[in-house]
């Protein structure tokens, strides 16, 4: 079958009478994927942009064009700036934790020792767990009456009574960051590990012969050569963290008060609770633009590093 396909392809591209230009052939083969992409990504995106310029509330019969009024309303509302600040606090903290922990985990997994394969497999478990299941798991771990965390901390003498970790600040956001990091560390570790394996061992061996300590080798060989990988990790993790929703939905519902209300939660509340699709879409556009801007900055940083 494969031989037949290869022959047919070869005939199509070599026979002058049936020859199709390379560019067109590429387009034909890409067409199904492009069509799916257009239907599932571009059309909804275009529709969301359209909605963001309309006063579109499912509970109201009239849905007039609103120009930039949805954006104006959002940008002049203190609640938006509060949720943006919370999103940034969450994203910066989570990305820092994920990157640092993943870096050291990847260094550990890059060494040769018995059981390394098993450890690598175990690392994937949190990543394989669906987001909502992860959130529910943490909700039970942190339960104020039956939570394992409370039991462990009490046995360790760290607390006298069980604590409602998700009902007060700053513990609520700290635990959300921990739960989020636990789920996302595996992906970052795998990416960094892949990056580590591209660094020639000879560089480390030469530096070791010159008397460079492990710390200096990490600082002057590993980190500079990992820069492209770390940039990719930072881009991915920052974008993922800015979009966080599932954990907030299950663990805190944006509370206590509004202290864990991130942009993702605001979009959900506006769109699916108030049924105000216009404002919700405008908020989503703003979040999209913020993540795009961050990605451009990271890429510029990566590009400058490569040129240097």
């Amino acid at each position, binding site marked *: 079958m494969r031989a037949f396909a290869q022959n047919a392809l070869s005939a199509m591209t070599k026979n002058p009478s049936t020859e199709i230009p390379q560019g067109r052939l590429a387009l034909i083969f890409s067409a199904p994927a492009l069509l799916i992409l257009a239907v599932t990504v571009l059309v909804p995106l275009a529709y969301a942009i359209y909605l963001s310029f309309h006063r579109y509330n*499912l*509970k109201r*019969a009239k849905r007039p064009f609103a120009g930039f009024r949805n954006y104006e309303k959002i940008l002049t509302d203190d609640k938006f700036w509060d949720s943006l600040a919370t999103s940034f606090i969450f994203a910066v903290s989570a990305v820092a934790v994920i990157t640092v922990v993943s870096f050291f985990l990847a260094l550990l997994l890059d060494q040769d020792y018995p059981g390394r394969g098993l450890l690598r497999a175990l690392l994937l478990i949190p990543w394989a767990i669906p987001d909502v299941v992860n959130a529910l798991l943490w909700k039970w771990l942190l339960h*104020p*009456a*039956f939570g394992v965390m409370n039991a462990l901390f009490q046995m360790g003498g760290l607390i006298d*009574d*069980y604590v*409602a970790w*998700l*009902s*007060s*600040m700053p513990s609520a956001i700290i635990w959300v960051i921990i739960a989020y990091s636990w789920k996302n560390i595996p992906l970052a570790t795998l990416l960094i590990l892949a990056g580590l394996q591209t660094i020639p061992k000879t560089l480390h061996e030469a530096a070791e012969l010159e008397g460079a300590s492990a710390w200096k080798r990490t600082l002057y060989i590993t980190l500079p050569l990992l820069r492209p990988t770390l940039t990719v990790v930072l881009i991915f993790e920052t974008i993922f963290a800015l979009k966080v929703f599932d954990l907030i939905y299950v663990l*805190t*519902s*944006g*509370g*206590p*008060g*509004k202290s864990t*209300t991130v942009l993702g939660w605001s979009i959900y*509340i506006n769109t*699916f*609770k*108030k*049924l*105000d699709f216009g404002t919700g879409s405008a908020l989503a556009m703003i979040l999209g633009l913020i993540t795009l801007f961050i990605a451009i900055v990271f890429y510029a940083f990566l590009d400058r590093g490569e040129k240097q």
Partner: protein
Amino acid sequence: MMKKWLTIAALALVGWAAPMSAQDTDVELTGWPYQVDVVRENLERFTSQSGLSATYNPFPSNEYHTKMVSSFASGTNFDVVYVRDSFLAEWAAAGWIIPLTGLPGVDDYMADLPQGIIEQMSFEGEVYGLPYYSGNSVFVYNDRLMKQAGISSPPKTWNDLRSQAQTMKDKGILPKPVVIGLAANENSILRTLEIVSAGFGGKFFNDKLEPVFQEPNSGVRKALAWIADGIKSGWINEASLNQGDGEIDQFMRSGTAAFTLVTDYEMKVLNDSEQSNEAGNIKNALVPGSADATSGTIGYVRLYSITSEADKEKAWKLVQFLGGKDATGAYYVPKRWALEFGLGFSPAPLYKDADVRNSISGWIDPDLLQEQAKYAINRGYRFVPYFSDWETEAWGGFQEIIGGADADSILEELAENWNELQSEY
């Protein structure tokens, strides 16, 4: 050429989808997924009695409102739908559900129902359904833990509750004896505040639907201050801020809380030995009051309504079967919910039904339940279409006040928000 292929593909898709969307049942019911198997069993009985086929396709409870509004707005329709009183006005005003006016036998059903329930099922003077279940929120306490603390009778006022909880805390019986639903969702913080405020003689809005909760010394302010003090002092568990309706049960069933507010039907689970460690110890009492009010509670009703797109005659048959009488003339489905699941009911004949009385007295005091219903407050403000917009903003604000934020500015802002929404709609 491309156009031709696209046309063929579109026709193929339509051809494939058409049989799937074809109406192959007489009546389609949707609601939230409570006891799905029992609902389907009931529908089988309906089919055997009426000869009409019926299907039930529920949506998740937490997303029910959103899913249904999206379905109505996008033209996807059902024949009979569950409706919560809180969004009855919104759906009725939008024309998604229709009134029962003029349908055969409606007046007979109304004669069996209390006036309060009829009002809660009405919009602009017309009734929009028959009750699925109904009832009130009640105050419950753990009698075993009360006796252990040397407390002889349940609290009559919120201040009594504070001292009883403090006693339990001081004696080391429970570190945080009170748990109440203060989570930021439809079924928690605002409902709890409505009940506690009513006990302080307060209300959120006056009869003209103007906000009064922000006024100095209002019952709502007293309720917020009482809760904030409880959480700060530790006799109310701060976990309350993250607990919804069903989650509070876990504290009572495990004996890790001694006092709470629940909807009446939840008492069946609390006193079910297969589901509760404290079965038999959980009692109901009148919701505490104050110098300004003996007690206060909130009533609820969930109803079956007919959608505007339904075959009215067939849908009414199903609504009657589910919320009224079956072909034998008995309130079969309401009685089944009451007997097997403890759901509250409204038709007068069921109050006299010996099976029902015997069944519920095993887990709730029916006389106190009836007494509590007298203190149900009017919540007409919930039946305006912008209420859900306002309450979504209010949840976080009330939590902030309980957490110690400045009540004046937040309450003023929430009052302004209400007035703005009122003028917008």
